[in-house]
């Protein structure tokens, strides 16, 4: 059993805008590329050229079809660790490897203490942790803890790789404990949602929902209707064109 901090000074996390996510997988692969050479062991891939290629990833994007009576839409849903305030993956950890940092709220695995028992992955209701097939330790999103404070990177690049690369700017990074932060403002203005609040994990990451889209069978972009010309025949149109010009 590992304890959670009573309170964290900051709550660093992501705000993910499902309204603009096109499911392109840029965040997924860029995350893999940064983190393969970054924090902890490399993110290994088993059978990279074989029959069952399978590797560890810290972030995945799923696509769902949402069908209602008269419409069908696709929602793309990026999913990574939500850095919960009440993180069950931390409290379940028998070795103290799973921790939540008191200074910024980031949930990390100290791989030197991880024995690969997998309890934390069972405890996480979001499926946000993956066992590394080579190192046998648990991998998860670090919020790019080795980027966001990294003085070897230009200041502008001190943000998670997924945020840096997202081509639709669907991912936002910041301090959700600061009510004036960019991410808090987004949550306030767009009614940012917790994922599965009934699990009582108090996730830090928030999701912005797709804004209203017209149903597939409904085209009501505007109430505006085109009025016919008095005589919408070729001769009527041609006459109208000439008279419109003469008024200039």
């Amino acid at each position, binding site marked *: 059993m590992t304890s959670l901090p009573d309170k964290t000074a900051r709550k660093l996390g992501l705000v993910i805008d499902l*309204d603009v996510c096109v499911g392109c997988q840029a965040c997924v692969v860029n995350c893999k*590329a940064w983190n393969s050479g970054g924090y902890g062991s490399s993110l290994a891939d088993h059978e990279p050229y074989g029959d069952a290629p399978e590797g560890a990833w810290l972030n995945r994007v799923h696509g769902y079809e949402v069908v209602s009576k008269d419409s069908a839409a696709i929602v793309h849903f990026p999913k990574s660790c939500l850095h919960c305030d009440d993180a069950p993956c931390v409290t379940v950890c028998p070795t103290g490897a799973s921790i939540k940092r008191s200074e910024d709220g980031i949930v990390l695995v100290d791989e*030197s203490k991880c024995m690969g028992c997998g309890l934390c992955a069972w405890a996480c209701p979001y499926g946000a942790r993956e066992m590394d097939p080579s190192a046998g330790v648990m991998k998860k999103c670090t919020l790019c803890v080795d980027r966001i404070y990294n003085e070897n990177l230009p200041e502008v690049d001190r943000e998670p790789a997924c945020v840096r690369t997202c*081509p*639709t700017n669907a991912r936002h990074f910041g301090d959700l404990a600061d009510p004036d932060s960019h991410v808090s403002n987004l949550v306030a203005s767009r009614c940012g949602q917790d994922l599965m609040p009934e699990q009582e994990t108090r996730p830090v990451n928030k999701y912005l929902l797709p804004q209203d889209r017209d149903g597939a069978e409904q085209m009501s972009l505007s109430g505006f209707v085109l009025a016919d010309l008095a005589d919408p025949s070729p001769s009527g149109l041609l006459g109208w*064109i000439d008279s419109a010009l003469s008024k200039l």
Partner: protein
Amino acid sequence: MSTVLDLSPFVSDEVRKTTCYMCACRCGIDVHLRDGRIRYIQGNRDHPVNRGVLCAKGSAGMLHLESPARLQAPLMRTGPRGTGEFKEVSWDEALSTACSWLGEIRARDPRKLAFFTGRDQSQSLTAWWAQQFGTPNYASHGGFCSVNMATAGIYTIGGSFWEFAQPDWENSKLLLLFGVAEDHDSNPIKLGLSAMRRRGARIVSVNPVRTGYSAIADAWFGITPGTDGLLVLALIRELLRSGRIDADFLRHNCNAAWLVDVEDGETGGLFVRDEQGTPLVLDSRTGRPERHDMPGIIPLLSGSAEFAGGARAVTVFTLLAEKYLDDRYSPETVARKTGIGASKIRGLAAELARVAFDDAQELPLPWTDAYGNHHQTTVVRPVAIHAMRGISAHTNGFQTCRAIHLLQMLLGAIDCPGGTRFKPPYPKPAEFHPRPSGWAGPNTPLAGPPLGYPLGPQDLLVDSRGQPQRLDKAFSWEAPLAAHGMLHAAIPNAAAGDPYPVDVMFLYMANMAWNSSMNTPAAIGALTAKGENGDYRIPRLIVADAFNSEMTSYADLVLPDTTYLERFDCISLLDRPIGEPDLVADAIRHPVVALNRNVRPFQDVLIDLGARLGLPGFVDSNQRPKWRDYAHYMATRETRPGTGPLAGWRGRNGEKAGRGEPNPKQLDQYIKAGGYWSQEVPRQARFFKNLNIAYQEWSTDLGLQPKPTPFKLQIYSEPLRRFQLAAEGFGDRQPPEVLRQRIHKCFDPLPIWYEPASDSSGEFPLHAITQRPMAMYHSWGSHNPWLRQIHTDNHLYVPGSICDEMQLVDGCWVWVESPVARIKVRVKRMEAVNRQTVWSWNAVARRPGAWGLSHSSPESRKAFLLNHVISHLLPKQPDGCRWSNSDPVTGQAAWFDLRVSITPADDSEQCTYPQFEPQGQPPNQDPGSEELCYGGEWCK
């Protein structure tokens, strides 16, 4: 924590900025290097294309350097074609062999070389090489990609979607997307779509499938494939019926007021011109015919005139009104065919009009047109359109794309703020492009480039009997405006000896034995077909590629290329320029990692071959090689005095832009500046570039064009009418009888819609199309361990109503049958798809053994290509002729005309049909590891 967390770990020794090539977008990348290897790739924040972002493919680029599919050395075939049995040879032997084959041909009949270059980004070099060799049989992959968009755009507005124009992402309030392919301009489109949504602008997607960009559109029109043109003409009819059109734009920017001769005869349907050849309009003040470019003239849009001898002429707009107000284009009439309800069509027309006209503004930005008229303000029409492959890949795609451009012109939304805007060096109309050049004789270069834009039958490449001069039949009566050639026809025609056999086929980066051919088994059959003497019908096959692709296994001689991270390359204004509406730009690639195997950049090899063959231009007066390599060529070749492949840092010390003498240090300056060069378009030159004198002068000064070339947008296309006249029996070059009717129908000078040429009988009731996954580009993603985990195999997506009717459940197997073949695939149910359409992801499947993958990989056992059931020929004509399955105007491959039926299949084998024999590995290929821990050496 027991280990101290280092919050500032070392990142990289160095960042090198170059250009991505994981797809066609050409984004700027920052490559982080550590110990000589790539630690990480991120987008270049300063780069005009991607402004810092980077997609999945680009982010995984370093794994191409790990790929077991990388070729290691030049290869000569030792076994039968297709088995993949090779021996390694030296570069000297490889190039001597190629030269012995090519030199003999050049001296005898240069047409016997067919040189086709796939997804080539060095076409200004490869086309010139073909020209100097003397073969007209050259093209890149445009003929099977998007030549319909390019050609319809160039003939109509002098630009085209994607490379030559783009939506005004900052100012548009309504964007209409048609059939977009998600690997073309993908990062810019993603950036633009999200910016639009954030601004509250609306996006309407017209696409049979609601994936990708369509998923975030405000409204989705799940159209029936191949009917987009009909929808657009219905929108046009609604705009005309209600008079919601931009009459000023039509009068002054387009040829809507030009007078057309309506008498029968050899000038019927052509513009009425004065003695200098300038088209005439009716002056609204006098009612008399005058030159259209007379300063101050306000021409009448409607009206008619009688000329000496009683000849009658009417304006283009008169013809247009008569054509499109017809009830055949009413929303009710087109609803059934398009699958879009009449009220939805009316609603969209109303919305287009509302935004274009009620949300219009006038910017206080004065500009002057080329005829001397000064305009105090610039009109904003905030409606943009973007269209791509889904429009292009049909036999009616050319005219559909023209219809889309007509819609834009009626709304006045071309190159205005808020509309679809040209990217310099475009616009550039067909007249200012070259004509295609035909064969000139042994040891003789072509008079000009092999590809171009014909303006009438006189420019076709046909012999005295009207037969094609080119192997692929581009620029013949079968595909008169095939401006990008027809790569998809080259292999079948070569094997059939139709119109003539060739001796050597030389392919670069084109996977024609697999996902780049229609009817893949037929393409493989053509590559391996033997004549009565036991020799292959295509006697010699040279393939240049970086990887052990399906195509490589059929080569007699393999010239191994490098990856994009190991060579110089040139993204030139002479080719397919990058750039933005307000920015002219070009870029380079340069080696960011050292080469570790016996391969050479293809462009270096081509330059070497050119010199060894003594091609004019590739050797100096002493017959010595003129260029050391491609880098040397990029910096020093002059196409005209003062202009060359790269526009930046010209002049002896790099002090000039656009025009200037070659600069020996030019590439160093590109590298120092981040791999690209750009210059802003002056403010007063940014809009209505086709007429804007400030743009015309600025672009001339910069060397983007030799002289100012103002022009009006061509609603009515006279080049098309010239082909129709030939079909009517006028002129000394007329189509063969079997093609006369088809030419007459398809070359309508005003946009039309006609049924796609596919078999629409009840036997094959469903449309079948593919979509490009955003994380995969053609074959190139499949051997990338990260990308292949995202798309390891594919299913056929089937509308729910059909699943219910046929009792199909997810994962069950079905036969997909077309008139030519059948495939067995797995099903997934989907609702967000047109109800008559099935679809799948493109190019996931692989032949066993290709691309360094295991023989029983999911890509070969579970995935499938729709290509196998797409005929490369249209059904037999009454006289027994079979034409290419291509647009009759441009020769564009009609991938998406496919019609199929599906029936339940037995699931005992649990693998797709057909299955192919595994291909072998060349000697000394990297076997590929059982486990990849990329970057493990840097982990703590």
